[in-house]
């Protein structure tokens, strides 16, 4: 018996051919002609519209101060942090011992099950750096790898994202080009735009359906 694969593909190949249409002209998005500062403003505006909270600070020290403020406001006792380059540059474990917030990262755990127990039940926030921010829609772009575990930005009820301003780009295509134009692709790349939500019960908007109820962005620079 022929394999399902070959059978399906052969049937498709044997079908009559049609003409491939010419791609029509489409004007570019306005974001591609914005300057750096305008992009940051646009990013902030779009994310705020999606109920994201955006703070802008000048440097890492100020970012840590802001973080302390947020920790107090939100009553954070334990946080799960990523170990990506942005988060690492803040030395969050040191911040934790100073402020009394228990800072954990995936590296502290022996395997998936231990990590899941902690990220689901023992932290009130996930803190991550990001790889890209997109002005077009106030979107965060995260490459998942050994330093950016998937559940950190997903399982806790609060996601705090640290965004260096030089990582704000105009449109999705700019970002995609640099993520997907390489030999080894990331196992997962994700766009996050605001908190998790649903309208499934009579159309009522409910934030925090499965993922974070709140997304806070600290823009540095």
């Amino acid at each position, binding site marked *: 018996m022929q*394999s*399902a*694969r070959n*059978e*399906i*593909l052969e*049937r*498709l190949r044997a*079908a*009559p051919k*049609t003409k*491939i*249409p010419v*791609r*029509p*002209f*489409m*004007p570019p*998005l306005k974001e591609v002609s914005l300057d750096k500062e305008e992009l940051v403003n646009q990013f902030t505006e779009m994310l705020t519209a999606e109920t994201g909270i955006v703070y802008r600070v000048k440097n890492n020290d100020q970012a840590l101060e802001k973080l302390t403020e947020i920790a107090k406001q939100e009553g954070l006792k334990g946080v799960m942090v990523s170990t990506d380059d942005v988060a690492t540059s803040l030395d969050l474990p040191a911040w934790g011992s100073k402020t009394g917030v228990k800072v954990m990262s995936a590296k502290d755990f022996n395997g*998936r099950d231990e990590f*899941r127990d902690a990220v*689901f*039940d023992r932290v009130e926030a996930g803190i991550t750096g990001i790889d890209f921010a997109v002005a077009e829609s106030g979107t965060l772009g995260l490459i*998942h*790898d*050994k330093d950016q*575990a*998937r*559940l950190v930005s*997903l*399982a806790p009820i609060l996601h705090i994202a640290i965004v260096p301003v030089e990582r704000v780009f105009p*449109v*999705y*295509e700019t970002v*995609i080009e640099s993520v*997907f134009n390489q030999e080894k*692709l990331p*196992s*997962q*790349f*994700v*766009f*996050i*735009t*605001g*908190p*998790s*939500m*649903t*309208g*499934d*019960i*009579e*159309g*009522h908007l*409910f934030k*925090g*359906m*499965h*993922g974070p109820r709140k997304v806070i962005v600290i823009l540095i620079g």
Partner: protein
Amino acid sequence: MKISTEKFTELAKKEVEKARARPFLKMVPHSLYQKRKAGLATLPDAAAAQAYGAAIRSEAINRLPELLEEFEKKATANGAKVFWARTAKEAREYIVNLASERGAKFVIKGKSMVTEEIGLNEALSDHGIEPWEADLGEFIIQQMHRPPFHIVGPAINVPVEEIRDLFMAKGIMKEPTLDPVALGWAARRFLREKFHRAEFGVTGVNMAVAETGTIINLENEGNIRFAKSSPRTQVSVMTLEKVVPTMKDAMHLIRLLSRNCSGQNISAYVSMDSGPKQDGEIDGPEELIIVIVDNGRSGIYQDPKARDALRCIRCAACLNICPVYRQIGGYAYGWVYSGPMGQVLMPLLLGLDKTQDIYRACSLCGACKSVCPAGIDHPALFLYYRSLDVSTDHSFKGKRRPWREALFFKAWSMAVQRFWIWDTGISVTRPFINKNSENGVIHNMKGAFGGWFRKRDLPPMAEKTFHEKWEEIKKTR
């Protein structure tokens, strides 16, 4: 899921009489339509963007075999496993076996239409593996054993009282409430435990990118991201037409899909997988299995006209604008797909014989076509299906109409092609119709055409036909 597409007319009549769904149908599709309009207006040229989307989908369908091969090659190189299934049965048996082999006690599911099409949940349950739908709407209808009312908001018509009773009966919450937010929290807490312990996740696929072997999912809740992050095994099921040429094309379709669906610029989460987790990653699947389902589509593909139905990206814009859907909602369509997109797909998937009323339940107003980001010409397809049906075309199981209807149209076609029959007919019928006229309007008539007057009037027929008048005018000059 039981298929009841043959009972469309009967079900539609029942749905129209259901008072409870009425306020919903008056509001939600309209408000989604308004949101869509506002969303599209954020693009510099919405019409050009829609046309560009149609060109992408047209090219994808055109190059289908070649793109599928490329996708498979790249996805495999990324470390994913690709399984091809000829039929729904092959697909669900493969997934059920895999789940058994992996020792899964339950399966966590991200929202997907294709797993409903292949009847995966029933098959899993039959083998003692619990399927948990994790999208809130899907979760509700799964517990209620109902079909989706709307492909995007499957339970959006279910009143809070029913959800309260359901959640109390199933032990999902302890204290009764009618607050939609509290109901949402109860579902969150319940499903969170499932996400936490999940070892086997199943999702659908919105787009499969040939260029990179990447699968893409759009969602707002996070159920799909959880199903792709927490378990050790991830199975993502796609029908074969989901493939698109490039990542750039996918980005444009993300813009269009989000806007056409809910008016959002982009859905809250877009996750793009290229292979399973890599060394050192603590979460994400150890194995990523992509199931490509044919289930009749390679047959549909043989017909260059009918294959246009495969362009659909499931945005549901056509449901929200359709005057028929707006009256009857999603249940009457009798299967997983509803509204115009269901009306173009189901006849091909199930056969023209089993869906005769489905592709006739349309006034050909063209509203669906006018909003479609994939460039599907729904009314043209309905006319095509009707013609295949009356000519008993074999490939899609055309059935022919009842003899009375066939005879009527034969007589009609004879009459309208011969003006002496037409003229005689007119002068014979005119007095019978016009005798119902009151002050120049016909409000009601007895007999076969009575139904017309439930919501409309008819002007009386003119005393003289145009030809008769023309003859008179010619004489006087």
